[in-house]
């Protein structure tokens, strides 16, 4: 994700990303969003449930919004990923070009691995 460090130490700036200890998935992994529809506050939109995509980026571990929403501290943090989907895999009758995509952030507990077709 980042280029090689320069020889001179840079001041530390706050990062967009958090560390992701023990992350289950890596960039390029093909995954599916779990097809489950529990009640309560979820940040995984209905339209993406059960759809297949690819890990685009690891964002790091963040407090779980599904718990924060009810006054809990959201710990332990869960790893958040950016996932890319082809629109044609999300909408059965998508009427744009086949290469259009939609990206969003999904927490690790909503992801399932897919077999790698190259294996």
């Amino acid at each position: 994700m980042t280029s090689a460090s320069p020889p001179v130490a840079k001041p530390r700036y706050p990062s967009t990303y958090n560390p992701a200890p023990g992350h289950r998935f890596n960039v390029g992994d093909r995954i599916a969003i779990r097809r489950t529809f529990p009640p309560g506050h979820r940040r995984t939109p209905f339209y993406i449930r059960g759809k297949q995509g690819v890990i685009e980026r690891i964002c790091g571990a963040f407090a779980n919004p599904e718990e924060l929403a009810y006054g809990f501290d959201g710990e332990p943090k869960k790893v958040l990923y950016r996932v890319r989907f082809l629109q044609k895999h999300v909408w059965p009758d998508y009427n744009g070009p086949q290469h259009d995509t939609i990206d969003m952030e999904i927490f690790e507990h909503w992801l399932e691995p897919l077999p790698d077709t190259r294996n």
Partner: protein
Amino acid sequence: MSNPSFDYYAQQKHGHAHEHDHARDKHAAIETREGPPSEYEIMSRAMQELLEEKDLITADQVRQKMERFEEELPYRGSKVVARAWTDPEFKQRLLEDGKAACAEMGIDLEADRLIAVENTPAVHNVIVCTLCSCYPRSLLGMPPTWYKSSNYRSRVVFEPRAVLKEFGTELAEDVTVRVHDSNADMRYLVIPMRPEGTDGWSEEQLSEILTRDTLVGVTTPGVTRK
């Protein structure tokens, strides 16, 4: 009937019924009213007053936020992207870590975590929050009404090209349209393609054509300025 010139904060601070008292109270916000307040306005003001009375917040804090959202935040996104247009190495750092790159410029995003996404001849990016109205407020201020509208939120994810067309933006079939649904902790800013005819422009001149709509991705910057 309610007083159209009523300035609540001036009255509260000075304890007398004076409207437009901002000569004395330079922080009093000027309010023009278009009719009686709705129940929700009354509710919102009542909640604020109660919290002030309980010393949980102050009127000054709220006023300062209002000023910040109005006068400072909306202009920061265009500055960042104008810098990216003129400094390719900065652009690279912005793409790799948006929050760190903004901090480098002295722009503190506070709670926001920025992912900058770049438009190229092959890719056009557009941002939405289908679930509510997440938006890079620390760089663009408050979202426009269309961004918060249910029609935008529901349609741009499945027919982005039709929605972009409603904004006057048409993209060739060989350009990939990439929608970003900002549904969790990240916030997004589009780096538009720099248009022809802007060679030698200063960052200030460039930031003028980097309007809010171009940074959300519903329009592209034009060289003819308003």
